[in-house]
């Protein structure tokens, strides 16, 4: 039962992703071709709202509903950030989907999403196996 809140938030997140059409390959192509503001508006306004929310949380030292102090970890730089980022970008333009949208597509009944998720798992597994040999 302690997971039900994450199921609820995930479901809402999936509905929002689908409603905003960011799970569409066509929208991603439109974005990379700079032919509409839609994707930039979605991502940009999400970041602005997230930023303001985090500032409010920090300044008011808000706690979680169970009373713990909220902790935000800092991300550390390594060369994998941009190398891996570039590799993901290639895949993003091919599949027209990042991981969240892949799962929303699966729910919406796109058969290809199942293949792409299995391939993404294979990619993650391969990265994990090669991790020590890659540049950072």
């Amino acid at each position, binding site marked *: 039962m302690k*997971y039900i809140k994450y199921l609820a938030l995930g479901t809402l997140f999936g509905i929002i992703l*689908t409603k905003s059409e960011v*799970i569409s390959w066509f929208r991603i192509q439109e974005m990379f071709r700079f032919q509409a503001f839609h994707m930039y508006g979605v991502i940009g306004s999400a970041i602005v709202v997230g930023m303001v929310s985090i500032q409010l949380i920090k300044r008011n030292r808000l706690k979680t509903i169970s009373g713990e102090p909220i902790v935000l970890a800092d991300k550390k730089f390594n060369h994998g950030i941009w190398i891996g*980022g570039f590799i*993901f970008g290639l*895949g*993003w333009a091919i599949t027209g989907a990042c*991981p969240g949208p892949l799962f929303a597509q699966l729910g919406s009944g796109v058969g*290809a999403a199942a293949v*792409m998720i299995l391939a993404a798992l294979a990619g993650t597994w391969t990265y994990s196996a090669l991790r020590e040999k890659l540049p950072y």
Partner: protein
Amino acid sequence: MSQPYPLFLSLPFAMLDFLQQPWPWYVAGPLIGLTVPALLLVGNKALGISSALRHVCAACVPAGIPFLTYNWRAEAWNLVFVLGIVLGGFIDYRLLGHPEAVAISAATVHDLKAEMHLTDFSGLLPKELFALGNLANWKGWVFMVLGGFLVGFGTRYAGGCTSGHAISGLSNLQWVSLVAVVGFFAGGLFMTWVVYPMLF
């Protein structure tokens, strides 16, 4: 003109209508942004979806790999969140309804017709590339298998995807995430503007 129905009767219909249409960016974007504080307030969790791929690998095929040998059960919330996304996609697309085709710009339709020879613009993805039958030729392997592989490999190498770096990371003013997002876009632009013209 007077309204045909009183407000308390027409409001539910207006809401249903709203739920059946795609949402503009200024509705959807802020709601996606609110997921960041919601996860923090509910359980001190950072929004990030690609980690779920790692947890599934750790749960199913750890194979003695150090990076996949950890207590993935402690991250089960992430898997439940992702399960919710699947459910959300089902509820939205199957129960609430959606338009026949995504209303992309006329310029994009023109370019995709001219450059990639696409003719069918219905649904979320072009069937000419993503129909399962395409796994019998190179298109299916490139678009579904290679594409998916690069998404899984690249996100873990970069330590996050659009949700973890672009939304969650940039919201928390992490410059590392900005580097990642520049990488995402560089890769996407390279594929769209350099590789696609060579493939088609």
